[in-house]
């Protein structure tokens, strides 16, 4: 008589553990939304989508971020904020599906106010990950988003005008001639470059943009 096949002892020991893990995760069965900052309306919008509306996690993120774009949260999201040196507002957005690890993103997108929706279009309708600049705008419009539209606002233009009146300070230029003015900017001599590095003990400490970045000016 052939001996009965027995499951390996290790498998028997590990089985309860793996079941426990599944039980813990499945027991959650409840939606959760987390977002940076006290953007309550955006978080509520995502919650309404995922809880009441039964949307997927991806669609809830789009709903939440879209709400922030419409509300122009802190002036750091959506159109009408953060003008560049030329006074123009551009949008960056990203969506990531943690089930499939698919990603869609747009960067430096001009003339289209729906950043997160454009990112989702990249994820859903291309095999790419990131589209940039005006080509991202053309893609988004071709896939049905409204545009082209001016992303500036009276507030962003006023902020830009005040900045110019202040000799374009602060700015993100370094190692340039005319850095303390509105330019034109030219590279300083190569051997005089200040890389902002300080060597102390064994650690290379590098200066960042801490004098510029703040509550209403950040990524």
């Amino acid at each position, binding site marked *: 008589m052939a001996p009965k096949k027995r499951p390996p002892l290790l498998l028997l020991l590990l089985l309860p553990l793996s079941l426990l893990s599944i039980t813990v995760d499945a027991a959650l069965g409840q939606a959760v939304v987390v977002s940076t900052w006290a953007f309550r309306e955006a978080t509520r919008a995502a919650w309404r989508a995922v809880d009441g509306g039964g949307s997927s996690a991806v669609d809830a993120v789009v709903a939440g971020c879209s709400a922030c774009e419409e509300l122009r949260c802190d002036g750091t999201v959506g159109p009408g904020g953060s003008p560049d040196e030329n006074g123009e507002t551009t949008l960056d957005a*990203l969506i990531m599906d943690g089930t499939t690890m698919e990603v869609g993103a747009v960067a430096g997108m001009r003339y289209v106010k729906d950043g997160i929706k454009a990112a989702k279009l990249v994820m859903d309708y291309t095999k790419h990950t990131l589209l940039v600049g005006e080509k991202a705008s053309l893609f988004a419009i071709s896939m049905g988003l409204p545009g082209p539209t001016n992303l500036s606002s009276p507030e962003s233009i006023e902020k830009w005008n005040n900045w110019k009146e202040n000799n374009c300070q602060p700015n993100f230029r370094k190692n340039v001639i005319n850095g303390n003015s509105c330019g034109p900017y030219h590279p300083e001599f190569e051997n005089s470059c200040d890389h902002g590095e300080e060597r102390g003990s064994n650690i290379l400490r590098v200066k960042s943009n801490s004098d510029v970045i703040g509550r209403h000016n950040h*990524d």
Partner: protein
Amino acid sequence: TISMAVIDKMGHIAAGTSTNGATFKVPGRVGDGPIAGSSAYADDEVGACGATGDGDIMMRFLPCYQVVESMRRGMEPKQAAADAVSRIARKYPDFVGAVFAINTKGEHAGACHNWTFQYSVRNANMDDVEVFTVEP
């Protein structure tokens, strides 16, 4: 910037970011917003992360990828968030930034450097959105 993570009722996780970037940036500049692993990251098996701050610095360290991978290796969200921020601070002591972390159990935490950070949470146990404050 808003960076957001959602776990739905099926246990699927997504993360995303939307931003108009830094004010008075050099035209053409892109920060960490559209970079997976930097401003946001998600993996159903582990959890998710969102970030905000100085994108020029943060995108060099992929802090959200670091957070999720640290949680995969067993760290609690609080520990993973603090570790990711400290890795940047070690090289850039004056950088400004923050991250939040959430695992598959819905446990969440935040960490920040050189500013006070707030993040918002809504789950079934809450009547409305709750805002958590994290001191540097």
